[in-house]
C-alpha cells in the first residue's frame, strides 16, 4: 500500500525530478520495513505515518517555484484577461453564483438545524438531554415534576438539572386578547443555560421557594418590542395570562429562544411549579403526569460517558420512589435542541438536500467549464506565444487555473446576498416552525468560501490542463484560430453531464408534484371534503379544569348545529393529521397485570355523532349514544387495536383497562390516518367526552356546501358561549391535509426550482455548443450546399447532433434519476421512485428543450452562403 501511495503522490512532483524523488522515498520505505521486520522499531515511525509525509514533500517541491511575486503576477493577469471580456465574465460569474449560492443556502439551513448552538446559552456543548424510558418499552419521553426533581437532587454527574414544557396561552383579556407561545420552566432553567436577561431578571429558584404568591413571567425580546414598544418600565408591571395576573420580572436577551430548534419560539417564560400547583395537584405526588422535557449541565471534569455510567443508580432511585416508576430508566443524549429521533431525521433531510445542492453545483461547474473551453479556442494564439517565450505547461496551467479561481471568487461574492436572503426565505417554506435561526454566520461564510474554492478547482482544472497542452508550432502556423477536436469532445461530455443532471432533477420534481396531487385526493379513512375544523384550548384560558370541558362542549354544540350551512357538528380532543395528538396506554382487561400486553394507543375523546359526522365506517357494534344513555364507561376501538388485542375475534363486549378504569367496547370502526398520510392507522381508542374529559377541543363542522360557514361565524358561535375563549387554526380539513405534506411540498418547491435552473443552464450550454459547431463547420456546410444538399438536410444534420447529445444525457441520467427518486422515497406518496411516467415525462421535456436550443443554429446552418464560406 505504501508503494502505491508513493506512486500516487509522485504525480505531484514535476516530471524532471519525479524519478529521483520516487527512488529516494522507495529506498527509505524499504529500509523502514526492514527495521520493523527485524524488530527494531525504537524511534522509527509507523509505515503509514512515514509515507504520509511524502505528500507534503511532493506538494512542497511542486510549489517551490511559487513566490509571492509570481502569484501576484498571475492574479493581476487573470483580472486583466477577465476584464477584457466582460460578457463572458458576467455570465460565468453569475452561473457560478447560482450554484455556489444554492449550496450556501442549503448549508445555512443544515447549520441552523444541526450545528448552530442555541443563542444566548453558555457552553452548550456541556448540556445533555435527559429522557424517560422503560426497560420493557424503550422510548424517548419527558418527565413528571417529582421525577425530574429527584434526578436534580441525586444525579452527581450534573451540576444543574432543569426542565421545560411548551404550550399555548392567551395574553390579555377581551379585545386585547392575543394567543402566545409559552415555555414553562423549572427554577434552574435559566441558570443551567447560563442565560442573561436584557432587562430585569430571569425566573430563578427563588420563584419556587414561595409558590402561590404572585406568579411571575419573563417576556421574550420580540414580544417586549411588539406588545410593549420596548418600554423599560415594563418590569414590575403586570400582564394577564390565562386570566391570571403575572408580574413581569424581566425581558430575555435578544435572540434567546430557549433550546428547541423546531417549534415556535416562546413569547413568554412561566414557572412550571406554578402550573403544577394551579392544576390542583400536590407537586410531590404528581408522579403520573409526565410533561416536562429534562436536560442538565455536566459537572466540570465529568464526561458524557461518565454521566451515562452513573445512570443505573438514578434509575434505581426512581423505581424505589414510586410504584408508577416500575421498569423506568434514564437515558441521555449529548447536546440540546433536537431529540435523537429528530436529529436522525434532520441528518437524513440534510444529506438529501446537500446531495441535490451538490448536483446543482456540478451542473454549474460543467457549464462554467464549457464556457471556458469555448473561449479557449480564441486564446490559442496567446497561449502559443507564451509557450514559445518559454512558459512551461505547469506555469501556464497555474495561470489559467488562477483565472478560474478569480471567477469562482467573483461567483462566491455574488452568492453572499443570496445566502443572506435565504435566512429570511427558508423559514417561510420550511414545513415546521423554526425556533432557531437559519441565517448566515461565520460557519456558513467559511463554507461558502470552501465551496467557491472547490468549484474553481473543479471547473478550472480540466480546461486549464487542456488549454496549456498545445503544440506551439502547429498553433502559430494555424494562426491560433482552430477550436481543437479535444475541446469539442470535452464540451460534448460536459453538456451530456448537464443534461443527465437536469433529467434527474426534472424527474424528481415530477415525482414530488405527483405525490402532492395524490395526497390531495387521498382517502384517509374519513371524508375530509366539506369539513371545517377549529381548535379551542380551554386550558390556556386558565378558567377551565378538565372536568369542566364537557360542560363547555355541551353548551357549544347546539350553537354550532344552529349555524346556517351546517349539516352536522361534533367535538373531539384531536383532529386527523392536523394536531392535538395524544396517546394513552391501554391493555385488555383479561390481562391486567401483564406489562407486555399494554399498548400506547391513539387517544381521542369525542362527542356523540363524531363517527357519523366524519364519515368513519362502522365495522361492528354501534357508536356512542348521548351521555344520559351511556351510564357505563364505554369505548369504540378501531380495527388495528381489535386485531392487536383480540386477533380474529369480535371485540364488541370485551373490556379494556386504562389506568384504574375499565371500559367496555361497544363498537369497532375502520382505521383513520391520525398523524400523517403516509403511515398506516395506528391502534386507536375513542372515548365519550364526559367519560374522558379534556380541555383540548377541536370543532368539526360538516358543511352543506363549501364555504357555507365562515371563520368569523364559527368564532362568533364560540364567543357566544365564552368571549374569552379564542379559536385558532380554523381551516378546511382537505386543505389542512394538503398542508400536512409539508416536507414533500418544501422539497417539491426546491427541486422544481433547481430543475428549472438546471434545464435553463443545460439549454444555454447546448445552444452555445451547437452554435459554435455550426460556426466552425461553415466551410464543410458550404461544400455540402455546393454539392447539392438542401437546407432541410443541413438542419437535420445539426438537430441530429443535438438530439444525439440529449439522448446520451437521458441515457446517462436514468441511473441518476432512479437514485434521486430512491433517496426521496420517504417523501413520496402513491408513486414509485422509478416511475416510468416521471422518467418518460422528464426525458420528453429534455429532448424538446434540446431540440429548441438547436433550432436557431440549425436555421443558421441551412442559410449558410456557400460562396462566402468556401472563400473564407
Amino acid at each position: 500500500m505504501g508503494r502505491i501511495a508513493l506512486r500516487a503522490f509522485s504525480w505531484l512532483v514535476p516530471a524532471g525530478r519525479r524519478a529521483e524523488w520516487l527512488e529516494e522515498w522507495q529506498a527509505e520505505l524499504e529500509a523502514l520495513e526492514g527495521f520493523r521486520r527485524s524488530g527494531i522499531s525504537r524511534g522509527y515511525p509507523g509505515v503509514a505515518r512515514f509515507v504520509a509525509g511524502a505528500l507534503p514533500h511532493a506538494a512542497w517541491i511542486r510549489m517551490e517555484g511559487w513566490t509571492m511575486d509570481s502569484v501576484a503576477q498571475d492574479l493581476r493577469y487573470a483580472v486583466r484577461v477577465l476584464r477584457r471580456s466582460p460578457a463572458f465574465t458576467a455570465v460565468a460569474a453569475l452561473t457560478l453564483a447560482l450554484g455556489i449560492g444554492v449550496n450556501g443556502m442549503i448549508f445555512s439551513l443544515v447549520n441552523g438545524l444541526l450545528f448552530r448552538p442555541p443563542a444566548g446559552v453558555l457552553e452548550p456543548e456541556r448540556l445533555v438531554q435527559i429522557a424517560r424510558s422503560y426497560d420493557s418499552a424503550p422510548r424517548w419521553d419527558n418527565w413528571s415534576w417529582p421525577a425530574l426533581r429527584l434526578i436534580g437532587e441525586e444525579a452527581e454527574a450534573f451540576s444543574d438539572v432543569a426542565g421545560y414544557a411548551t404550550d399555548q396561552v392567551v395574553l390579555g383579556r377581551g379585545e386585547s386578547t392575543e394567543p402566545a407561545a409559552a415555555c414553562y420552566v423549572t427554577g434552574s432553567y435559566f441558570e443551567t443555560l447560563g442565560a442573561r436577561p436584557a432587562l430585569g431578571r430571569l425566573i430563578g429558584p427563588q420563584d419556587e421557594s414561595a409558590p402561590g404568591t404572585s406568579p411571575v413571567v419573563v417576556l421574550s425580546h420580540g414580544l417586549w418590542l411588539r406588545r410593549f414598544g420596548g418600554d423599560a418600565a415594563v418590569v414590575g408591571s403586570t400582564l394577564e395570562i390565562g386570566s391570571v395576573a403575572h408580574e413581569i420580572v424581566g425581558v430575555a436577551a435578544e435572540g434567546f429562544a430557549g433550546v428547541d430548534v423546531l417549534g415556535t419560539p416562546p413569547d413568554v417564560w412561566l414557572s412550571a411549579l406554578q402550573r403544577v400547583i394551579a392544576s390542583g395537584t400536590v407537586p410531590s405526588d404528581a408522579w403520573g403526569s409526565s410533561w416536562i422535557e429534562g436536560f442538565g449541565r455536566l459537572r466540570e471534569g465529568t464526561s458524557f460517558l461518565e454521566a451515562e455510567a452513573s445512570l443505573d443508580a438514578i434509575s434505581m432511585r426512581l423505581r424505589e420512589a414510586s410504584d408508577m416508576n416500575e421498569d423506568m430508566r434514564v437515558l441521555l443524549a449529548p447536546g440540546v435542541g433536537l431529540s435523537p429521533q429528530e436529529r436522525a431525521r434532520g441528518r437524513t433531510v440534510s444529506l438529501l438536500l446537500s446531495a441535490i445542492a451538490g448536483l446543482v453545483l456540478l451542473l454549474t461547474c460543467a457549464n462554467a467549464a464549457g464556457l471556458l473551453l469555448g473561449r479557449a479556442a480564441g486564446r490559442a494564439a496567446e497561449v502559443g506565444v507564451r509557450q514559445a517565450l518559454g512558459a512551461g505547461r505547469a506555469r501556464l496551467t497555474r495561470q489559467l487555473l488562477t483565472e478560474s479561481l478569480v471567477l469562482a471568487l467573483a461567483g462566491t461574492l455574488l452568492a453572499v446576498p443570496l445566502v443572506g436572503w435565504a435566512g429570511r426565505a427558508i423559514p417561510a417554506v420550511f414545513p415546521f416552525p423554526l425556533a432557531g435561526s437559519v441565517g448566515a454566520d461565520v460557519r456558513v461564510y467559511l463554507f461558502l468560501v470552501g465551496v467557491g474554492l472547490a468549484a474553481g478547482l473543479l471547473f478550472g482544472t480540466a480546461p486549464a490542463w487542456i488549454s496549456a497542452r498545445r503544440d506551439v508550432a502547429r498553433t502559430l502556423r494555424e494562426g491560433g484560430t482552430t477550436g481543437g477536436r479535444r475541446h469539442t469532445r470535452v464540451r460534448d461530455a460536459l453538456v451530456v453531464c448537464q443534461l443527465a443532471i437536469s433529467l434527474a432533477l426534472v424527474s424528481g420534481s415530477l415525482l414530488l408534484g405527483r405525490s402532492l396531487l395524490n395526497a390531495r385526493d387521498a382517502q384517509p379513512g374519513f371524508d375530509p371534503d366539506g369539513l371545517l375544523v377549529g381548535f379551542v384550548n380551554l386550558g390556556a384560558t386558565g378558567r377551565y379544569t378538565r372536568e369542566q370541558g364537557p360542560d363547555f362542549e355541551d353548551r357549544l354544540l347546539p350553537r354550532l348545529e344552529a349555524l346556517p350551512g351546517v349539516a352536522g357538528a361534533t367535538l373531539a380532543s384531536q383532529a386527523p393529521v392536523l394536531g392535538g395528538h395524544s396517546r394513552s396506554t391501554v391493555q385488555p382487561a383479561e390481562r391486567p397485570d401483564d406489562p407486555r400486553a399494554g399498548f400506547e394507543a391513539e387517544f381521542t375523546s369525542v362527542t356523540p355523532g363524531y363517527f357519523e359526522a366524519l364519515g368513519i365506517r362502522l365495522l361492528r357494534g354501534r357508536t356512542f349514544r348521548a351521555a344520559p344513555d351511556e351510564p357505563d364507561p364505554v369505548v369504540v376501538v378501531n380495527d388495528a387495536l381489535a386485531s392487536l388485542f383480540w386477533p380474529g375475534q369480535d371485540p364488541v363486549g370485551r373490556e379494556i383497562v386504562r389506568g384504574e378504569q375499565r371500559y367496555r367496547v361497544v363498537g369497532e370502526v375502520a382505521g383513520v390516518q391520525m398523524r400523517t398520510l403516509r403511515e398506516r392507522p395506528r391502534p386507536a381508542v375513542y372515548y365519550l367526552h364526559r367519560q374522558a374529559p379534556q380541555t383540548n377541543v377541536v370543532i368539526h363542522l360538516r358543511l352543506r356546501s363549501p364555504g357555507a360557514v365562515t371563520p368569523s361565524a364559527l368564532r362568533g358561535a364560540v364567543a357566544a358561549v365564552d368571549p374569552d375563549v379564542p379559536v385558532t387554526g380554523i381551516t378546511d380539513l382537505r386543505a389542512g391535509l394538503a398542508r400536512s405534506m409539508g416536507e414533500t411540498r418544501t422539497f417539491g418547491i426546491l427541486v422544481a426550482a433547481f430543475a428549472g435552473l438546471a434545464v435553463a443552464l443545460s439549454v444555454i450550454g447546448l445552444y452555445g455548443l451547437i452554435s459554435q459547431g455550426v460556426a466552425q463547420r461553415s466551410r464543410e456546410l458550404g461544400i455540402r450546399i455546393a454539392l447539392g444538399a438542401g437546407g432541410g438536410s443541413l438542419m437535420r444534420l445539426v438537430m441530429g447532433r443535438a438530439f444525439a447529445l440529449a439522448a446520451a444525457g437521458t441515457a446517462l441520467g436514468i441511473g441518476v434519476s432512479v437514485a434521486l427518486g430512491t433517496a426521496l422515497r420517504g417523501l413520496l406518496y402513491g408513486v414509485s421512485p422509478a416511475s416510468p411516467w416521471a422518467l418518460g415525462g422528464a426525458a420528453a421535456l429534455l429532448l424538446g428543450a434540446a431540440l429548441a436550443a438547436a433550432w436557431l443554429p440549425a436555421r443558421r446552418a441551412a442559410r449558410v452562403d456557400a460562396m462566402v464560406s468556401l472563400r473564407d
Partner: protein
Amino acid sequence: MPRPLGFTTLCVLAAIRDGSGYGLDIVASTGLPSGTVYPTLGRLKKHGLVTSRWEDQRLAEREGRPRRRYYALNAEGERALAEGADRMADMLSSLSPGSLRMAR
C-alpha cells in the same frame, strides 16, 4: 536561508552532524515527522547548507537493498548550526538554567 534558522531546522542539521546520514535516520533521531524532515532537507540543500549524494550502487546491491541518498553538512552548514545553537542557548538561558545539547 534569508531568515535565522528555526528550531526544527537546527535539529535536522544537528542530526546530520551527529551521524544521521539519510532521511529515515534523521526522522528516527530527531523524532520529527517525515513531512517536516524532507522539505527541510530540500530547503537546506537549496540554500547550500548541506550536500547530498547517492551512495555507490554496488555497495547497496551487496547489502541487498536499493541505494540511498546521503546528506552531509558542509562548512557553511556547520557555521549556521553553531550560530543557531548560540542564539537558541541565549533565548533559553533567559527562560531557564541548563545548557543545550546542540551548543556542545
